[in-house]
């Protein structure tokens, strides 16, 4: 019985794995878009410019306050009424990117604000402009702080990408559904699908640890074994 299940799973893996490459591609594309939006609106949230700050806050609050699923539906099914017709993959990446951007904005904002103000003060006292202080002093430190949170966001994005199956993107979950439709073996199929997601997400968390170590500040005590 078990051997039969395993043989079946092995036979379908090539098909669903092609969906995995689509999943990885749209996740990375969405994350990249999210990073751009995250930087723009994250800096906006700490800006003293009233308009910039207001627009950024509205973006972050609205996106975080509505379900990703609904955002996907709006972008794919709703935009055509405004004359914008997008193919499923583009719509999917756009929705994932806009959604991720709001969370990345908050991650970046929190990271920048976690750097003690005295770092900014000492940079300014040396005659640096605020921009120079940000580029050479604050951001390099903030990036190290936010790496775990950002990789976590990418992991969430990979899992959330399963939702774009509903608009027809032939990613991992959708391909699994297709196989279930003719094989009537949902347990094996969806377990295999879940296992593939797990491999990706687990690898990402290992990458995170590697990056943290590589970029760590010498002498900075991290709470190991606490």
């Amino acid at each position, binding site marked *: 019985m078990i051997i039969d299940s395993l043989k079946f799973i092995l036979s379908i893996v090539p098909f669903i794995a092609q969906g995995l490459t689509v999943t990885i591609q749209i996740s990375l594309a969405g994350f990249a878009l999210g990073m751009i939006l995250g930087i723009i609106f994250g800096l906006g949230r700490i800006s003293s410019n009233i308009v910039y700050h207001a627009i950024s806050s509205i973006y972050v609050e609205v996106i975080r306050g509505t379900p990703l699923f609904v955002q996907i539906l709006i972008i794919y099914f709703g935009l055509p009424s405004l004359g914008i017709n997008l193919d499923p993959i583009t719509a999917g990446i756009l929705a994932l990117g806009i959604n991720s951007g709001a969370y990345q904005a908050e991650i970046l904002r929190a990271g920048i604000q976690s750097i003690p103000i*005295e*770092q900014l*003060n*000492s*940079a*300014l*006292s*040396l*005659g*640096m*402009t605020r921009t*120079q202080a940000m580029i*050479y*002093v604050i951001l*390099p*430190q903030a990036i*190290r702080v936010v790496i775990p949170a950002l990789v976590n966001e990418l992991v969430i994005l990979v899992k959330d990408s399963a939702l774009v199956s509903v608009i027809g993107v032939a990613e991992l979950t959708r391909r699994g559904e297709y196989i279930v439709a003719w094989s009537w073996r949902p347990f094996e199929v969806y377990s295999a699908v879940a296992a593939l997601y797990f491999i990706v997400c687990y690898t990402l968390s290992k990458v995170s640890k590697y990056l943290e170590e590589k970029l760590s*500040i*010498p*002498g*900075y*005590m991290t709470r190991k074994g606490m």
Partner: protein
Amino acid sequence: MVEKLLRNHMVLVEDLHVRYGSLEVLKGITFSVNYGEKVVILGPSGSGKSTLLKSLILLVKPWKGKIFIDGEEVTDPKTNIVKIRQKVGMVFQNYNLFPHLTVLRNITLPLEKVKKMSKEEAEKKAWEVLKLVGLEDKAHSYPLQLSGGQQQRAAIARAMAMEPKLLLLDEPTSALDPELVEEVLEVLRTIAIKKQLTMIIVTHELDFAEDVADRIVFIDHGVIVEEGRASEILHTPKNPRTRQFLRRLLRRKELVSTVTA
């Protein structure tokens, strides 16, 4: 009248008021510092000493009053504060070195980006100041790998590399373990004697103040209570609040020295 004052004074502060929210921390400070003078500011915690130093280079925004540094009005919105800060060096209680850069890079970064020096010129200058503070062997270490005393000396080197006309020191030894205080004070004494530098130092180290200060200003609850020549203030203070503060400070010092004896 103001022009005459400006010509003689490195720093001129007129009726300075600073607030944090609804709390008024500085309640009308007026004082001046001559070129080349070393002034020590004494006062209990919460008196506004740090706020005063920070407001001189607008790290804190004054609510009312005027500040002049080297003839230019700092509090004038038309003044380019970035240019003024390039003439002023500041050393903080918590060193505030950039932890992600080596000690050498901490010093060369502002030289390259602010003073627009070339990499070679910046490094040459950096080694000069590292020699001055005795940290040549730590140039390639990172700040968090150093002791507190070494970090503060590195911070002093970084500030001195910019060749400031005015050096502000906000309790430079207050965060240090007692054994490490002397190495920093030694460096500061050397700087005070050798250089024609105007210095304003907030400190609790009374012996050091006596060695280095031309004048002492005592601040309490946001106002200047008494000021005068260093020896007068330390040995024959006129105001009872000054006497009370000095007595308390000296008693604490005595306790520490009897324990460590």
